[in-house]
């Protein structure tokens, strides 16, 4: 069944209820709710238009370019959300996403045939889902890693002082960060089908696919998301360490936006 724009507009008016609740609770996030939902509508409208064209063109080069743009935007968004400085991290976290996505795409070929998967209709939505989750996992892991490292720096220095190498001293912090990034997926996977029907499956069923096909895709995508999030949250941290922590284990003081330190680094 097609949804008319008018009915969708009326449906959007339902947002007035949460806004009323927020106003009543004196939560000053009404503005960001309005901004976020407006952005969502505008962005999706644009994506809808682009996708129409991209699907029609279905050119491998344009598809690849589109994916590349998605990765750049994801990388930027990860750094912005974690408050990490672009200038230091951008070119180090970027390859971790590229490696993850290339690995994801290649391994999709175990299930899907090449012609199907690399057509825009498959590649872009599936790539987008994997990337969206990779982004979430990366935000959690990088945020957790750098915040616990700076908050519990004494503990880190203690390990170095015990004789640990940089990586040995960082290991407990990396483990914690990766664990916190992956825990939600493990919990979601365990309750899938019982508590919630995932978006992709719902979409396919609403779109007319048989539940069995929808389930097959869902299993594939969940595995892909979990694998991609694990690889990328781990690699993201590993690559980000290169510019932020030197060989002797000193942590750069200006990794977070808004922090400045006047001083010399260790002389070479």
């Amino acid at each position, binding site marked *: 069944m097609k949804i008319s724009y008018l009915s969708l507009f009326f449906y959007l008016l339902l947002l007035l209820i949460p806004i009323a609740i927020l106003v009543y609770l004196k939560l000053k996030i009404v503005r960001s709710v309005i901004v976020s939902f407006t952005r969502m509508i505008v962005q999706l409208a644009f994506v809808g238009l682009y996708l129409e064209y991209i699907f029609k063109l279905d050119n491998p080069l344009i598809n690849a370019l589109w994916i590349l743009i998605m990765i750049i935007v994801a990388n930027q968004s990860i750094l912005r959300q974690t408050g990490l400085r672009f200038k230091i991290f951008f070119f180090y976290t970027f390859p971790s996403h590229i490696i993850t996505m290339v690995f994801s795409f290649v391994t999709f070929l175990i299930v899907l045939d090449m012609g199907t998967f690399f057509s825009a209709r498959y590649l872009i939505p599936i790539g987008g889902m994997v990337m969206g989750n990779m982004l979430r996992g990366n935000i959690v892991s990088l945020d957790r890693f750098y915040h616990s490292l700076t908050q*519990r*720096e*004494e*503990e880190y*220095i*203690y390990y*170095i*002082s*015990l*004789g*640990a*190498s940089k990586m*040995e001293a960082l290991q*407990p912090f990396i483990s*914690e960060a990766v664990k916190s990034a992956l825990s939600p997926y493990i919990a979601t996977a365990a309750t899938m089908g019982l508590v919630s029907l995932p978006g992709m499956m719902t979409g396919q069923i609403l779109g007319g696919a048989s539940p069995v096909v929808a389930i097959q895709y869902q299993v594939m995508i969940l595995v892909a998301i979990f694998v991609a999030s694990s690889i990328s949250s781990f690699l993201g941290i590993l690559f980000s360490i290169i510019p932020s922590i*030197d*060989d*002797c*284990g*000193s*942590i750069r*003081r200006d990794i977070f936006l808004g*922090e*400045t*330190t*006047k*001083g*010399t*680094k*260790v*002389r*070479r």
Partner: protein
Amino acid sequence: MIQLEHVKVVKQDTVILQDINLTLYKGDKVLLKGDSGSGKSTLIKSLLFFEQFQGRLLFNGQEITVKNLCEYRRQSGYIGQITPNFNENVWDFLSIPYKFKSNKALTFDFQQMQELLEKLNFDEAVLDKRFSELSGGEKQRMLILQMLLLDKPIYLLDEVTSALDKKNIQSVVSLFTGDKNKTILSISHNQEWEDHCSRVIELEKGKIVMGGD
């Protein structure tokens, strides 16, 4: 011998340490005093080059650079106010350093551990307890024991007796100050340290007001 020359630390446009000149001679037992926020912990971290600063840090007359920093850090044992998340038992906790690559040549000195357990008022049964189930004071003493087993020439201590009772404070202070070859710099508010240290340095608003060079 460790020297800080004209050390200045600025964080977020706030001067934390200013014109610090300090020499720690071999065997020195130094107490570092000062109100909270006076820059004591920053000073200790600067001594390990974990703070970026203007000025120079020298070890045995040589300026610390990337080439000798790792080696220099290996000589110093730092204990801060920390409670590591560790879920295994105490025995496993004590063996952590021996798993590090740079410590491969070290062997766990069981006899010394027994002596230290006794000096730090522990019963041997503590080894089978989970580290996370120890009290704050017990954890603090266990960190000290773990570090002392590594027998470093320099110890930099940040409030290591803050959670201890009088008897244990005495034990810890005499363990650190008793060996005339060890260089000790300790931040503490306990009188016991003042009684046993050979020098007292006082910091006020990032400046040394007593006991500097």
